[in-house]
């Protein structure tokens, strides 16, 4: 029986986008697990995870995963495998394997904030290393984090290619406008 090749949401061989002083690169694929604790089970869930669940719009690091708040009563654990977690979370939470449901990208460069402003209504200044912001990006959804001076973007898989194209257009727009100079 043949092996089923695993593809990134952006297709095979996605090369980082570069325009002006900005780069958009795909992060290496890693496991992602959706966690939704049952009533009154958040504390027990935290114990299994080895760290408290972050507050709304928050991000927390635990020994085995990065936890991002992703919505009401929902968290996304980056770097944690659903199959490994599920047995320990039986009766505590709904567990979904979201490893393939998201494209993970990182936007860096001095113009990253200006590019994000073309796409997202969120105030980039409000994003700290402890932030996880589910928001709108180019008329689609995104979960945005701060990565150093740049931004981490989690995009739903099925529209990731389209969204990446839109980010590229915004990057080129910023770069082209800088070429205009003052005035």
């Amino acid at each position, binding site marked *: 029986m043949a092996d089923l090749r695993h593809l990134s949401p952006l297709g095979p061989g996605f090369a980082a986008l570069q325009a002006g002083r900005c780069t958009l690169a795909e992060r290496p694929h890693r496991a992602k697990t959706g966690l939704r604790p049952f009533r009154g089970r958040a504390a027990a869930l935290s114990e299994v995870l080895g760290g408290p669940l972050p507050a709304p719009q928050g991000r927390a690091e635990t020994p085995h995963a990065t936890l991002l708040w992703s919505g009401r009563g929902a968290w996304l654990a980056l770097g944690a495998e659903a199959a490994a977690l599920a047995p320990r979370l039986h009766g505590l939470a*709904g567990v979904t394997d979201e490893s393939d449901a998201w494209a993970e990208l990182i936007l860096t460069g001095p113009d990253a904030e200006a590019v994000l402003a073309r796409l997202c209504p969120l105030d980039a200044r409000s994003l700290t290393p402890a932030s996880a912001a589910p928001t709108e990006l180019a008329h689609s959804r995104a979960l945005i984090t701060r990565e150093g001076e740049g931004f981490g973007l989690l995009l739903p898989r*099925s529209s990731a290619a389209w969204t990446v194209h*839109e980010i590229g*257009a915004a990057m080129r727009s910023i770069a082209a406008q800088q*070429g205009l100079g003052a005035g």
Partner: protein
Amino acid sequence: MSRLASGGLVDRSRRLSFTFDGRRLSGHPGDTLASALLANGVRLVGRSFKYHRPRGIFSAGSEEPNALMEIGVGARRTPNTRATRVMLTEGLVARSQNAWPSPAFDLMAVNDLAAPLLGAGFYYKTFMWPKSFWERVYEPLIRRAAGLGRLAGQDDPDVYDQAFAHADLLVIGAGPAGLMAALEAGEAGARVILADEDFTLGGRLNAETAPLAGAAPHAWAAHTVARLSAMPNVTLMPRTTVFGAYDGGMYGAVQEVAGHLAAPPEGCPRETHWRIRAQAAVLCAGAIERPVAFPGNDRPGVMLASALRSYITRFGVAPGQRVAVFTNNDDGWRTAQAVEAAGLTLAALIDSREGVSPPTLSGRVITGAVVTDTAGRRGLTGLTLRAGSRTEQLAVDCLAVSGGWNPTLHLTAHLGGRPEWDPGLAAFVPSAAHVPGLRVAGAAAGVFTTAGALAGGQAAAAEALAELGRTAPGLPLPEAEDMPPRLTPLWAVPARGRAWVDLQNDVTTKDIATARDEAFGAPEHLKRYTTLGMATDQGKTGNVLALGVLGALTGRGPEEVGTTTFRPPYTPVTLAALAGRHARGAFQPVREAPSNALARARGAPMIEAGLWKRAAYFPQAGDTSWRDACDREVGFVREAVGVSDVSTLGKIEITGPDAAALLDRVYTGTFSTLAPGRVRYGVMLREDGFVFDDGTTACLGPGHYVMTTTTANAGPVLRHLEFCLQVLWPELDAVCASVTEGWAQFAVAGPKGRALLERVVAEDVSDAAFPFMACGSVSVAGVPGRLFRISFSGERAWEIAVPSGHGDALARLLAEEAEALGGGLYGMEALNVLRIEKGHVTGAELHGRTTAFDCGFAKMMSSKKDYIGRAGAARPGLNGPERAQLVGVKPVDPGAKLLAGAKFLNRGAEAVAAEEQGDLTSVCHSPVLGHMIGLGFVVNGRARRGEVIRMVDLLRGADIEVEICAPHFVDPEGERLRG
């Protein structure tokens, strides 16, 4: 030439060449197109809308009603652009509008002779007879004569951008009030955005000469702008018009980026639409001068007095050599002084007021006088004035008119604020409460002195800073003029002849009187009856004047008359800018199903299902039409094995101790009895008893379910479940998660389906191990996946799911295996044929107006439990023979075409709504049966099988006989399903 020997802020060391109506002209950097035209002695720039009267440049700002040009060539040609707002650039191409063959000689000026027929509301009174002529003759003629500029008629090659910005303080307008506000807030460390529609910041400081901080006002403006540019917390946005105030501190703005360039760099937007979220804002948009209405006040050469000052002082241009000034207020005197300071001849300063003392001038000063007429068809040559009983004529080539100032308060009214009349100023000023978070300063607030504007801007910023928790630095205010101008209202000069109020739409004082006489005297009626204020200048120079005229006619002041309201945008905004990048193919996000790369490689056309792209069919060499492919794919499924991508259907995982209870409450059927490893079909109703969605729910383990929904309802069903859990039953302990993105899912259907499955699934998939409606975790080509034995096609079928990252690979593997078995991929067209043949309903039937009873689901409605919609569905009128019920139909003539959307009528019935028996919702050609079949709803349909009725479509001209039958055309007993 009319360029002054010296003066102005233009860069005289460089020349820019441009063309106007084909003539090569030149100007300087810092010119607008209007100032450059005036510098070249061009006074006639177009023709008015209705009467095609010659028009000249009237103002120096965005309130310009006359100088509308087409700018650019080819696909980038843009009509209705105000020359007063166009930054002059090298190679600019401009053309006048609404004049043929030229502004100097316009054939349509014949309209002016017909003026008595074209007064206010003419299209309600004239061109009425004969009645048949309206649609055939008059309307097309009027339509062709209407409109000003022409669209390019080609695809717009420019790109447009959109962006969001955030600020502690948004300052709208960079005149003295705005610059001071920005400075005060900037020095306090606040995040400031200063926006101005002009390319040179400074507002009227660039057009006045009264000293500011002991020097020319423009010097202080330039120095302040430099100071602000150096502050990292201040963002300057020139060429940016804040066009609207919206809820929640949001402001809309459009920034001109590359429109002025003949060839913008690749990817560079022409304009950017900004949405600015500001904690606080200050409106420092200044004021717009209003004219006086007097006979002949529309000739080229008649302009606003402050505009004349702007052309002299900012641009170093003389719009005329022999100038008269007509004013009712002190500000007009400044124009007279500017005329003489520039070395031009002041023919006369004509002040309508008695007992005032204008300053000493070389030219004549006449008080208590009014202008009663002008002369000069294509350009002003003279005027007639009247002082008491004496009349006199003067030769002039420019008449500067000042009737007072109107604060630019439009944004304060965008959220329902109503301006108030200030009788002392004879102007409307912003009311106290208008837009939350927005303050007003300077002339926009009715403070008409420079000192007052500086102080007001600083005070507004200080108040905003206090609210933001910051300390205002209290910067020292520069010394500036502080002479409040006095005014005596004069709206219209009593004299014979047409006096213009709206220059663009050709509305005169006579039209206002006519409207009042015909009982359209309320401002909202007046506006629409006369079209005053409805041109592209939105009545900026005419509206208040019109209210004054109306008030004078009715013996009331403007405060009693009231005013029309203001809505965004402040100045016209291109639709392309509002669309930004989301135009054409990028209009909305595109969602790709996992097998789409393979489908496209096979040449499959893609159709849209909501935001998803799905393969329609898979063409092969030799196909003559899509039907060949569709029929072939139906054959795969009915005779061998077909594979289709069903990943787009919604998938929701529901877990928790009360998951089963939730399912029982949202579905009509019982799911708490569903055992692990089993799947059940479910119907979901709305509260009112109508069908919301249908799908299957699988039990993967105790308290663990996966629900599928239709593609279109994936989001709505999830929202519905969340509403149930958060609002209706917060006591239920269950959670829902959308997993549509995470799974690639394929239908494998047909008699050879099991043979295919055995080649990719590790586990035993025999009937014994995996009967109909079973489900479970399986290993698919080495990858952990899920298998569901369910069928939409009516054949023996499964749906096989793997994590979406493996979807493309699985699709290729399944296609290969299917083809080896004599089958292949099938697309949406074949999928639709298969399900119609089996009588399975989709969104075409579940469109929100059908009940479970209508669709034949009555047996699925449990009598043992309550569920959403149960009570609603039991209401009288929703059950019984009066309902249109799901049936199948086939044409009596097998060669006839069925049309989805057609209506059913009984034989012999009149084709009217009262006789309607139902409608046809889905049709297809069935390759199995060899003719068209359809699903639809017919009144009492289930009892009428075998009856012949008519299918009627009046729009497409069809009226054929059809036979009502059961909705299951192929394998009605469902034998093939269970194997």
